[in-house]
């Protein structure tokens, strides 16, 4: 996937729709990232930290029993095996390095499922930075374990009581903090959303997932690429990072949205949180609330590059319902011994449903990104399944 235009546009989508108070900070971040990302020393430092602290590279697992069950060959990119339990650490390490480079000692973040919050708190602990994480009250409740983890890591978690009290509102509150604190504070946004340069920068910081996976798949598949590459999409950072490794191949790219938060599938063009993208909204432009069991995908918008990939026809976006997601989580557990987070369970759910149909013909090879592990969801799933 290529660089956006200087104003941060991917086709019709992207841009930087933020108040004047934030414009200098977005421009500073663009310059800082552009300069750092052009330096081998920065890449070396970023990769070294991910190797020594986060366990990269993560393996690709040949899911033989699941494959046998579904009639397609499933390979799993195991971001669930990283330190902190999800792909979020990749982005956060890069942004923490940038914050330090820009001389900012305070870091704020939003979190939905808590995975980005935990990753940010982890990086801040490693770098000795002050960390404040905004989290909707609904998510504080359903992801209590991650709230406690963040606190153990020395972060302050601020519950957000406004609006739908989920990820969207946590982002609002983080932006409000940033407007007041921008001179000393870096906003460590967790997805490929927000104003330029975030969608581009976060995709670049996540492309290590796709770049590793492409090489690993070629080793497993005798030098060929998988026929399909599938990842779940809320804001879309693990999908963007995964797709970045395969966009130049013949692989079909499939993003799986939650049925109750399918911004690409059911949204209209709109502008929220700093960029133009697809957005669930009413006829007047008021942002709708999303509804899904997965806190990490509970977002009415989506990263602008996904809106662009959909419009350009390079990626396809489909939806998974809560029920089939729970089934998929259990299917992966009993066939492969892997309990995925509810988010990547969406990707598995689509593969399970589509396998053997024209959408995913029998005998295909399919890479699925396991963006995170299911520990954080165990309590919630236990309550649902009884």
């Amino acid at each position, binding site marked *: 996937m290529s660089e956006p235009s200087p104003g941060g546009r991917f086709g019709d989508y992207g841009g930087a729709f933020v108040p*004047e*108070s934030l414009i200098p900070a977005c421009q500073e971040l663009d310059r800082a990232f552009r300069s750092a990302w052009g330096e081998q020393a920065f890449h070396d430092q970023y990769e070294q930290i991910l190797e020594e602290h986060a366990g990269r590279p993560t393996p690709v697992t040949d899911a033989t029993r699941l494959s046998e069950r579904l009639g397609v060959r499933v390979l799993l990119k195991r971001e669930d095996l990283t330190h902190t339990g999800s792909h979020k650490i990749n982005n956060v390490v890069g942004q923490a390095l940038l914050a330090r480079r820009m001389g900012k000692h305070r870091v704020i973040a939003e979190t939905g499922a808590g995975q980005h919050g935990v990753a940010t708190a982890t990086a801040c602990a490693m770098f000795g930075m002050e960390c404040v994480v905004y989290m909707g009250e609904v998510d504080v409740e359903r992801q209590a374990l991650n709230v406690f983890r963040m606190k153990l890591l020395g972060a302050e978690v601020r519950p957000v009581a*406004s609006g739908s009290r989920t990820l969207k509102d946590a982002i*609002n509150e983080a932006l409000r903090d940033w*407007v*007041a604190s921008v001179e000393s504070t870096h906003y460590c946004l967790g997805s490929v959303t927000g104003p330029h340069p975030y969608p581009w920068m976060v995709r670049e910081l996540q492309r290590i997932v796709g770049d590793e996976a492409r090489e690993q798949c070629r080793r497993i598949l005798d030098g060929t690429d998988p026929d399909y590459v599938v990842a779940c999409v809320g804001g879309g950072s693990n999908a963007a990072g995964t797709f970045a490794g395969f966009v130049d191949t013949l692989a079909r790219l499939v993003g799986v949205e939650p049925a109750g938060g399918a911004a690409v599938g059911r949204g209209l063009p709109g502008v929220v*949180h700093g960029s133009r993208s697809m957005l669930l909204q009413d*006829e007047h432009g*008021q*942002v709708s609330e999303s509804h899904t069991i997965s806190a990490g995908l509970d977002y009415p918008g989506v990263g602008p590059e996904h809106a662009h990939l959909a419009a350009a026809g390079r990626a396809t976006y489909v939806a998974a319902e809560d029920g089939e997601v729970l089934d998929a989580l259990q299917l992966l557990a009993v066939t492969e011994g892997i309990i995925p987070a509810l988010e990547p369970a969406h990707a598995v759910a689509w593969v399970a449903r589509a396998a053997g149909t024209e959408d995913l013909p029998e005998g295909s090879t399919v890479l699925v990104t396991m963006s995170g592990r299911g520990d954080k969801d165990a309590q919630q799933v236990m309550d649902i399944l009884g």
Partner: protein
Amino acid sequence: MTDDAPGALEAHLRSQRDAGRKLLVPYVTGGLGEHWLEVIEAMTAAGADAVEVGIPFSDPVMDGPTIQEASQRSLDGGATPLGILGSLEGLHVGVPLVAMTYYNLVFRTGHRRFARSLTASRVAGAIVPDVPLEELDDWSRAADDAGVETVLLAAPVTPDDRLARICERSRGFVYGVSVMGITGERQSLAESAAVMAKRLKAVTDKPVLIGFGVSTPAHAVEAAAEADGVIVASALMRRLLDGASPEDLGALVAEMRAALDAG
């Protein structure tokens, strides 16, 4: 509209300023409660030079708790952008109205349709804080064509060269943000308010109004010392949310008016 010909909003504010008057622009959230139109009338009768009408958005990232609550309550009451503008059509207050909203409402409605709706309701100006200079063209083309004056915001962190460009592109007046932060009442006016006003006055002849945190008559006087006037929002909306009547709000605006006139 050409760059040189000021629109109705700018012309009005200039003439008031040039007559030696400090400008007072109070804000009301459109659709908030049953009496919001009467609030506008009361504010005008109390000496407002223009009134800013908020068109509430579900996700107001520039706003603090008071305007958030006002917006949410208005939306919960069924307010819609075009409904609010429609209500303004019958209002005759004798001072210009300025709509304040967020970009997605403009974008979803359509740039030209939104601009025409403002004109139809005799709203002279528009403030859309999440449309910075770089993203302005789509909206400003439609606004300029419809004769709607788009007011731009300048912030304390805006560098000098950019400040000059903002003043050049801004119509009606220039909105100086007093402080790095969101809207809301504050104990004291930030020191950055005077700096902001001086920097703007140094590069533009357009009316310069200071907003964010102007909470009391004393704040208004202090902010207007360097600027041409002030915008007052949260202090008024807090009272409206707490049950104040249009007359109560008119009285507060009158106090601010008197303080500004006394200098």
